């Protein structure tokens, strides 16, 4: 099962890279979203996949480590999801504002901060 999940995470990241290489800002943002989800899957796989065994200690305290779900990756992923969601929301609003203000979704057309250099003079 780990291998399947690892391949799935890889597919997520591959799709994210494909979208990130686009010039359209909206597609780049979707790529970032996919990238975040792929990485979250990766953390889940990294922290041992098991069948449904809750990480709750029995009263005598002893529990075989390999048979139990690992709660820490889930805590890490939850934190990453919350933070990623907040940042992604901001990025979406920023993209809309940039589209309204600059009139462009194409990053090649956003040249306000980096104006292209003036053409070299042709005469002497």
């Amino acid at each position, binding site marked *: 099962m780990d291998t399947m999940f690892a391949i799935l995470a890889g597919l997520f990241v591959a799709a994210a890279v494909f979208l990130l290489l686009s010039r359209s800002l909206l597609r780049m943002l979707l790529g970032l979203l996919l990238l975040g989800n792929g*990485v979250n899957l990766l953390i889940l796989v990294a922290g041992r996949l098991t069948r449904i065994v809750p990480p709750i200690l029995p009263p005598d305290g002893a529990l075989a480590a390999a048979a139990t779900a690992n709660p820490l990756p889930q805590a890490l992923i939850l934190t990453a999801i919350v*933070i990623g969601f907040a*940042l992604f929301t*901001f990025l979406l609003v*920023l993209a809309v504002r940039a589209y309204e203000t600059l009139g462009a979704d194409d990053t090649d057309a956003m*040249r306000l901060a980096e104006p292209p250099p003036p053409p070299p003079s042709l005469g002497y």
Partner: protein
Amino acid sequence: MQQAPILLAAWLVILPVILPLLGGAALLMARRHGRFHLAIAGTVGLAVAIVDGALLWRVVATGPVSMTMGRWLPPFGISFTADATGALFALAGAVVTLVVLAYTAMDVEESRDGGAFPAMTLLLLAGVSGAFLTGDLFNLYVWFELILIASFGLLVFGGAPLALDGAVKYAVINFTATTLFLTALGLLYGALGTLNMADIFGAAPRASPAIMASVAALLATAFGIKAAAFPVNAWLPASYHTPAAAVSALLGGLLTKVGVYALLRTLMLLPASRDFLHPVIIAVAAATLVLAPLAATAETNLRRAIGYLLIGGIGSVVAGIAMPDALGTAGAVVYVVHAMLTISALYLVAGLVERRTGATDTRRMGGLYAASPTLSVLFLLLIAGIAGLPPFLGFWPKLLLLEAGAARSGLAGTATRPLDLGAAGLTICLLLNALLTLIAGARLWSHIFWRAGPEDDPSEHPARPLQAFAAREKWFGMGAVTSLAGIILLAGLWPNPLIEAGRAAAASLLDLRAYVAATGLAAPP
């Protein structure tokens, strides 16, 4: 489970984070009553600086201090561990924030919604202090995200089209970089089962070197983007000149330094992987050192040119990481402190220059020397500091780095060993960087201040006549910049305390036994 009560002194480690977080939250809640926000933020900043100073004094005197929260022992609980490196950087960051807050006081009467700026600045300071003082890699990720959110807010403040354009590029690349960092964390957790920095140092030698090397490469890429080292630096000159000058100073002084600190810290935790990446680090350092000041020479936008000078400084720090001995690491640490102070001061001076000339492009500036000798002397002093001319602050870390390079390469002293080409190349690149930075800076200075007036610009926007400073601009703007320049000058003339702190920091980075012992974990073999 941790039972012993936490020592009162250990609270020093987390106060630099708690104070600005609470202050920022309070200011955000009171944003409709924006009268004393700047004064409150300044008080909090001053308190943070005092706490950081006390922490540094304690850490240099008695070794690293650690505090673990939530009654869970490390490696499970989140530790805050301050060594001399983190405490020194946190202190420099608090000083920069304080000066920038004083600088923005000159605009407080004009700005209509100034209420959010001090709060955002405090949250940024909280993130920066947290990143410097935390002892847990996942916690470092959280502080990076807090820094990102605060810096987004600062960048788009006011919503000018130029700032939005810069913010789009800054936001997308930095979000990608933190996601790369998270990827490295996932792999690291899978390989070691821990994310506590002290524990990673002990566990890393037992893991597969191939996995550790790929983790280190991912971390180096993520932090390289954050620090704007050469192949991944294009976002910085595209965004840092777009917001107000005070925000440029804050971001330029603090954020790239957090990235380079994270690079230094994580590579020192994984010495075997650092050695594996050694050729890459040397190549990145050499390219950054030479190419960035060349780009600054070709640039006419004042703050974009300063951005390139900033990137050149990052090259010096990476050069220190490429020479991980007592001299090289001390040089890198002292250089970071120097760059934090000097780059911020330079951005603030650039803001004042832009106010007086009403232009952002050096082609439309000129003749400022006669109008404002103080400003021109300040600019010249800071340029000399960045280039590393002898009596100024920038000279001392460069000297340490050059000594390290000369000793390693066999260029100096008893040359019984064969010549180390990497270290020799770095030494030459460091010297070349000083020369090129001086050329770029002197070119900026002579264009802005020395020549009689703007060159004949064929554009449709004629240069505006020089503006006089209002009283508030004179007191708060010039006052803040002059006091920061004074700190830089004094630290350059009496560099011994800073160099001693840098040596202590290098010792704690190179020998992590005291760091591990402070967290309460068993010492590695």
